[in-house]
Every structure is written in structure tokens, then in C-alpha cells.
């Protein structure tokens, strides 16, 4: 069986899997752990607000105990933060609790749609990069913001395909295409991917990785769905690496022109 030939490199780390997983919304931590395993993921994100950061091993906030640090890079996220100050504070707290200094920077002031605040995300990224964090910012699919964050020194950019939990797929495809075209750091499509086919589509476009949570967590069988996403991501990556035929849009334009030449010949 073929497997993608190129590994994913983020900051100073190399990963074989291009599927990142979120840990929210699962029916139980045990199901979540089984889905992580089936997905083949190597990078797992968890909300710091749901974890016990006091070091007291709170049995009622034990989500991190289900994410084996030997197998997965724990990518703590700042979900719940409404502004840069709050996100920075959470990141520092995670670092001082002994978690890896990798942060998925998420700042969404509107709790209903969870859309990222570009201004606060930019401000927080500046501070966290300066403090030595490896920063993976969750952003709207804004190509200019992506470049600005790259210039600040973030390790990736993570544009959304559609609002979190919407399962709508790549609604922001045109902007993501530009982001991929311009990026000098890995592009991870985050949020909105509702089916393995949509993950494959993002990978075919040249996204370096995708992050999936809701579609796996709320599936009737999350473990099998995690396998399906793993295969979708691998298929999409293989297709990208092997060179897809030209897009239909480009192929159509020639006929009226040649017809003209035939008429005038």
C-alpha cells in the first residue's frame, strides 16, 4: 500500500500523520481515547478550561489523563478566551503546569458561533511567539491575516473551512486556496469539516493537514469515523502528491478561442 511520501513538519517536529484531532463533544473520555488511536493522529488538542491546571489531579476534570503524552503531542488550546490577555494567561498557566509549550491559539469572543477574533489573535500571537511558544493560530480564512501571522512567527496558520461544528465542509475554499498558495508555514484547515470526503478535498487542494473534532465525536461510531477520516486525509494527500489533473475551470476556456480560429481560417 502506498503512503504519502512527505512528512508533515511543524516548527522543529516531524509528524507522519496529517490529521489533528480535537477532544471535545465525545460521549466519554474512553471513546475519545479510542478514536484518537484509530485516527492515527499524532497531535491532539484539548481545551485548557476543561482541564485541571492546579496539579491536584481533579477526578472531575481529568481529560488530559486520557491523552498519552508518549504517543501524542498535546496541543493545548485557549478556547474560552475572549481577548489576547486571557489567551496569553491561559498559555502561560499551561506552560507552568508542565504542558508542552505548543499552543493552539483560539480567541472567539462570540460563544455562539465561535468565530475567531483576528485582532486579538494577532496581538496574542505576537506576545506568545516572543515568549517562546510554538503558536498555531485558529483564524478565519483571511489570506492577509495568515501572512501577517506568519510574519509574526507562528508555526502554522489554521484557517477555518466553515464555522465550528457546522459540518459544512470547505465553504471558504477560495480564500483557503490563496492562503495555501502564499503560505511559507504549514496550513492546517481547522473547523467545519463534516465528512472524510471534505477532509480529502482540503488535502487535495494542498492543505498540509486538517483538524477534525465534531464530525468524529458525534458520529454514531466515533472510532470507525476516525478511521474513515484517517483514510480520507491519506487519500487526499496522495492525490495532491501525485498531481491532480488540471481543474475543470482551466480546461474549459480554450474551445471558443479555437472555434474562432477555425472559422477565420
Amino acid at each position, binding site marked *: 500500500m502506498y503512503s504519502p511520501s512527505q512528512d508533515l513538519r511543524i516548527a522543529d517536529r516531524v509528524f507522519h500523520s496529517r490529521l489533528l484531532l480535537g477532544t*471535545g*463533544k*465525545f*460521549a*466519554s*473520555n474512553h471513546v475519545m481515547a479510542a478514536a484518537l488511536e484509530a485516527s492515527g493522529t499524532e497531535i491532539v488538542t484539548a481545551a*485548557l*478550561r*476543561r*482541564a*485541571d*491546571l492546579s496539579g491536584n489531579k*481533579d*477526578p*472531575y*476534570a481529568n481529560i488530559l489523563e486520557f491523552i498519552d503524552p508518549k504517543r501524542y503531542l498535546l496541543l493545548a488550546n485557549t478556547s*474560552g*478566551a*475572549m*481577548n489576547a490577555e*486571557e489567551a496569553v*494567561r*491561559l498559555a502561560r*498557566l499551561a506552560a507552568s503546569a508542565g504542558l508542552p509549550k505548543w499552543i493552539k491559539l483560539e480567541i472567539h*469572543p*462570540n*460563544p*455562539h*458561533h465561535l468565530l475567531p477574533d483576528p485582532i486579538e489573535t494577532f496581538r496574542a500571537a505576537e506576545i506568545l511567539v516572543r515568549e517562546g511558544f510554538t503558536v498555531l493560530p485558529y483564524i478565519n480564512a483571511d489570506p492577509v491575516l495568515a501572512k501577517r501571522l506568519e510574519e509574526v512567527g507562528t508555526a502554522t496558520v489554521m484557517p477555518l473551512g466553515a464555522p465550528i*461544528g*457546522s*459540518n459544512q465542509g470547505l465553504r471558504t475554499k477560495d480564500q483557503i486556496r490563496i492562503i495555501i498558495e502564499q503560505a511559507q508555514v504549514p496550513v492546517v484547515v481547522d473547523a467545519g469539516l463534516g465528512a472524510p470526503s471534505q477532509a480529502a478535498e482540503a488535502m487535495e487542494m494542498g492543505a498540509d493537514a486538517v483538524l477534525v473534532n*465534531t464530525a468524529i*465525536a*458525534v458520529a454514531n461510531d466515533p472510532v470507525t469515523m476516525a478511521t474513515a477520516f484517517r483514510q480520507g486525509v491519506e487519500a487526499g494527500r496522495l492525490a495532491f502528491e501525485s498531481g491532480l489533473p488540471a481543474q475543470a475551470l482551466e480546461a474549459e476556456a480554450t474551445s471558443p478561442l479555437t472555434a474562432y480560429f477555425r472559422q477565420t481560417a
Partner: protein
Amino acid sequence: MRNPLPDCSRVRPGYGDAGNPFAYMTFAERFRDPNRTLSASARSFQRLLEPLPDPGLEALARRAAAITRKHFGRTMRLFAPLYLSNECINNCAYCGFSRDNPILRVTLTVEQVLAEARYLADLGIRNLLLVSGEHPKYVSNGYLASVVAAVREVIPAVSLEVAPMEVEDYRPLVANGAEGLVVYQETYDRAVYQEMHTSGPKRNFDWRLECPERAFAAGFRRLGIGVLFGLGDWRTEAMHLFEHVEFLLRKCWRAQITVSLPRLRPAAGGFHPRTAFSERELVQLVCALRVMLPQVGLVLSTREPGPLRDVLMPLGITMMSAGSCTAPGGYTGQGCESLHLTIRGRAAAATVAHGKAEAQFAIDDDRSPEEVAAALTRLGLEPVWKDWDPALTLANA
């Protein structure tokens, strides 16, 4: 002359209550406007409230459950109320704490509140709703601020359900770590409201109606509103509640809006519901709200019976109380040495030697938090205890 650059620091963090002069009036102003029109969503919501045959209700419930899973996953947030005081200067016909009810009253000291909070924390509770009657002398703003600061040491998420305040009075509570504010309008029918609230500051309908907006201006991140069903016509109340949510979603866009749908329960004073609102209608309302407001939190308390709560768990509810007691000191017997009887608002005698403080209303689902969590697990839902860390807002957390 060139315009000076805008001072962005003034705008952040965005809780400005003055806001855009072209944008919003208060909900009270809008609600008074007889020419206001219903939004398209509100009209759809109205149709979903019409009587439904069984297959229609089943279909609505399936839609609601699917939408809930999509937006909230297979999870349920748990919380418990902690009553601080049953002193009250209002007379509300339906409430056990009404001023004129001859009941045993107490206001817990900060230490006593902390003992209750520790007890709940040991049961797994990581999200607490502090509840109190309205009494400026016993339940002062300074008292509330001290209570919040103390409780936050043992419980990460603290919300308040207390008498409406000014924006400036809310700020110290937010600064001390309170993240949510709950205030039910009780009824959106002004005439019924006046009839139910016969004396005390609560008589001011608009002051209460604008309370969530003041709380937002002060920086609260979760705003809970609700109707007390049994006072007015349930469909009319639900429509007004829907309009209120729609308004808050626009104006208080940074806040998580939650909606509660409490039905009247037996309480001291012996008030009986004036209007009917059946279990079936409650289920329909929960589902209709979920379908039309997919991301809004829906809260269900222990005032409903366990079997009905189990039916509602997967259908749209996102937050449930568990193991609740609705009397101050009810969990651990705190404050029982300083109880006093009041008659028509006046302390009738010196301290009563024994007894229990009166509860606000009788609960129905008396299962422990652990038992409610087990019921959720059986339904394939994960009980979420901790969903908030004080480090988000408090520099010294």
C-alpha cells in the same frame, strides 16, 4: 485639520454600554413599541409552538436532538445552586421567600457559604449558581463580592441569581470572578407582572427587563434569562422570551445566552399556577427553541421530575442542575443557629434554637449529582463538570 487617530484602547475589551448611537435601544424600549414586527425566525418559532400530533412532535424532537449534538456534542454541563439568603423585601405571589410569608430566614456568612461550596465541590460540582433573595441590608453588594471571591477559591465557575443591580455595582462581582448572571423576567405580561409583584423594588418591570444588558455592560460572559411558566399564557410568554433572546444575541454578542423554562412549583404561600403548561408542551418548547436557536444554552433544573428530565436530556438541554437544595444552608445545615422568624417582614422573635430555613420552592428530581451523571452516561452523554478556568479572567488565579 486631520482627524486624530481613534483611541482603540478605549474601545477594548468591547463591553461599551454606550455603543453605537445608530444601533440598539434597550430591549425594554423595543418591547414597549407596539409597532415592532416579528423576525422571520420568530414567525417560524411561532409555527413550531402550534399544537402538534404525535408524529409531528417526534419529528421535531429528532431535529432538535440532531442540532444539539452538532453544536454541543454528546455532552451535558452540570451545576448546582447554592442559596445564600432567603431574606427578601419583595412580595411575589408565587415565591416562598416573599416578605410577608411567616418563614424561618437566614443569611449565610461568607464562611458558611464556603462550607456549603466545599461540600458541593466534594460531590464533583465545578459550576455554581449563587442564589439570593433581595435584601439590601443582609445581602449587600459588598457581601456578594466577598462571597464570590471566597467561593471562587473552591469552585472554578461562579454565576449569580440575585436582585437586579446597576452596571457599576456589577463590576466588582465580575472583577472577583463571577462569570454568569441569571435573571428571569418571570412573566413578560406587564399586567400579570404587576399583579404578581405586589410590593418591593421588583415591581419595576423595565428595570428587570434591562438587567441582562446591564450585566453584559459590566462584563458578565454568560447571561441567563427565563420565564416562570404558570403565570401567563405559555405560547405568548415563549414568543416574548424568543424576542428577548434574539435581541440579546445582537446587542450582547460576546455573551453566552442561556434560557431556562421553569414551571411553577409548590412553595410557602400556597400559590397555585394560573395557567396550564403540560410536560408535553414543555418538551415541544424545548425542541422549538433548539431548532430556532441552535447555539443558545438551554437549562433544566431539578424542579422537574427525574423521568421528564431524562426524556429531555438528549433533546436540546445543554446544562442541568443536580442534587439541588433551594434553602440557604440546605446542603450542610449551615446557619441553623441564626434562624429567625419574620412576620410581615419584621423579625418576630429572637433567634430560633432549631429548625431549618425555608426553601424557595420544592424540588422534584432529588437524585445526587453522581446519579444524574450516571443517567447521562446511560444515554450516551458525557457529564461535564469543569468547563471554565478562573485563569481566563483572573490575573491572580
